[in-house]
């Protein structure tokens, strides 16, 4: 490594040491921290690198937990920890393209990895979404929320959590502005690969179920 690169490494080290000393890491873009860590790692600055990685791990843990619905930790099945630990290894592997990828995308890469872990776990466990049904063995549906308070939203969230996954997705897409069908763009039917009639049916049922629950609570 030539002298000019050695000097720039020293400047980099001083810059990040100052940020750490001033407790400024939370205000820094995590992608910049990853880049700094990888450059410092190649120069053998293990201590400073460790501080940066420790911060990134804590930050990633919070971000991924928030994405994952703050699931109660289960040490035997913890995709959050797996995602964060893989991130730690990749960031410190200078030959890893995944590690370099975290310099461009932090949150996005974490979410992509989390979804991948969940998919693989579900395939291994052959998990199928349970289908909650009412007394008539019909799947259940949600309500309208034009003037709802916090308690109402809590009820809706609970009901949505009990719905069959695809019914819930149909409702979520409907709430997000997707039409039942569309000739030109994305629709509930195209997203879920169902007919428009089925899409409308599922959204209607979800709506009715939520209305029922809100009616019971009031």
């Amino acid at each position, binding site marked *: *490594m030539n002298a000019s*690169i050695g000097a720039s490494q020293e400047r980099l080290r001083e810059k990040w040491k100052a940020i750490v000393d001033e407790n400024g890491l939370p205000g820094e873009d995590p992608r910049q921290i990853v880049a700094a860590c990888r*450059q410092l*790692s*190649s*120069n*053998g600055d*293990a201590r400073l*690198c*460790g501080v940066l*990685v*420790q911060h990134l*791990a*804590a930050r990633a*843990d*919070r971000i991924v*937990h*928030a*994405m*994952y*619905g*703050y*699931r*109660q930790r289960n040490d035997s099945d*913890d995709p959050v*920890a797996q995602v*964060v*630990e893989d991130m*730690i290894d990749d960031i*410190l*592997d*200078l*030959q*890893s*393209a995944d*590690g*370099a*990828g975290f310099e*461009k*995308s932090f*949150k*996005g890469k974490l979410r*992509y990895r*989390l*979804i991948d872990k*969940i998919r693989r776990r579900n395939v291994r466990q052959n998990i199928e979404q349970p289908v909650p049904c009412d007394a008539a063995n019909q799947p259940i549906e949600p309500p309208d929320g034009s003037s709802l308070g916090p308690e109402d939203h809590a009820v809706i969230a609970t009901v*949505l*959590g009990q719905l069959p*996954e695809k019914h*819930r*997705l149909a409702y*979520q*897409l409907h709430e*997000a502005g*997707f*039409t039942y069908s569309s000739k030109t*763009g*994305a629709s509930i039917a195209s*997203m*879920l690969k169902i007919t428009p009639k089925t899409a409308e049916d599922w959204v209607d049922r979800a709506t009715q179920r939520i209305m029922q629950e809100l009616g019971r609570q009031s």
Partner: protein
Amino acid sequence: MSDPTERLEDVLIRFHEAVDAVTPGVIDAWISDYPQYADAIRAEALEILKLPYHGGATAAEYQPRDYTAKVQAAVRHATERVEKTEVPDLRAALERQELDVRTFAARLGIARSIVSDIGTGQIVPSTIPGWFKRAGAECLGCAIEWFEAILENSRPRALTAAFKASEPPTTGRARTWDEAIRASGMSEDRKAFWLTGRG
């Protein structure tokens, strides 16, 4: 305009980085840019919608995990790896990423002859500018320092003597970066870019 050679994983990671809320406009825009990945983009959007329903606890119940032991072990391992790792030459480094000289040069937007000459030590490594090293490191997905080590380690190939030659073959004088760029077949715009790093 999207890059048709962009890998699915890279597209999906950018999708996750860019998208907070799944809306029809977002899906339409991404599928319009990447029609070849339409099904995967839709599936990924559905997974985003599903994520919050894996939970059950609340933010108030969040218990952060302690990664100290993991970080210490990973840093130690990385330090040992740096000390033991044999630096490849450019061609070997490309092969590890399942790339060839042609594809690497195309991704960087530089003449294949330049990459080939770097790989055989025909361009003096110390004259290679920082902007090429940054672009090359990004393309290979490695740290700039690692890429510099690769460039330094790219040596001329061993030459064999021609039949009835009276003298052993020589590699000739290695050229500087500027000389190689000026002598290449690139357009003047591309030459100017690679000579100055601007354009």
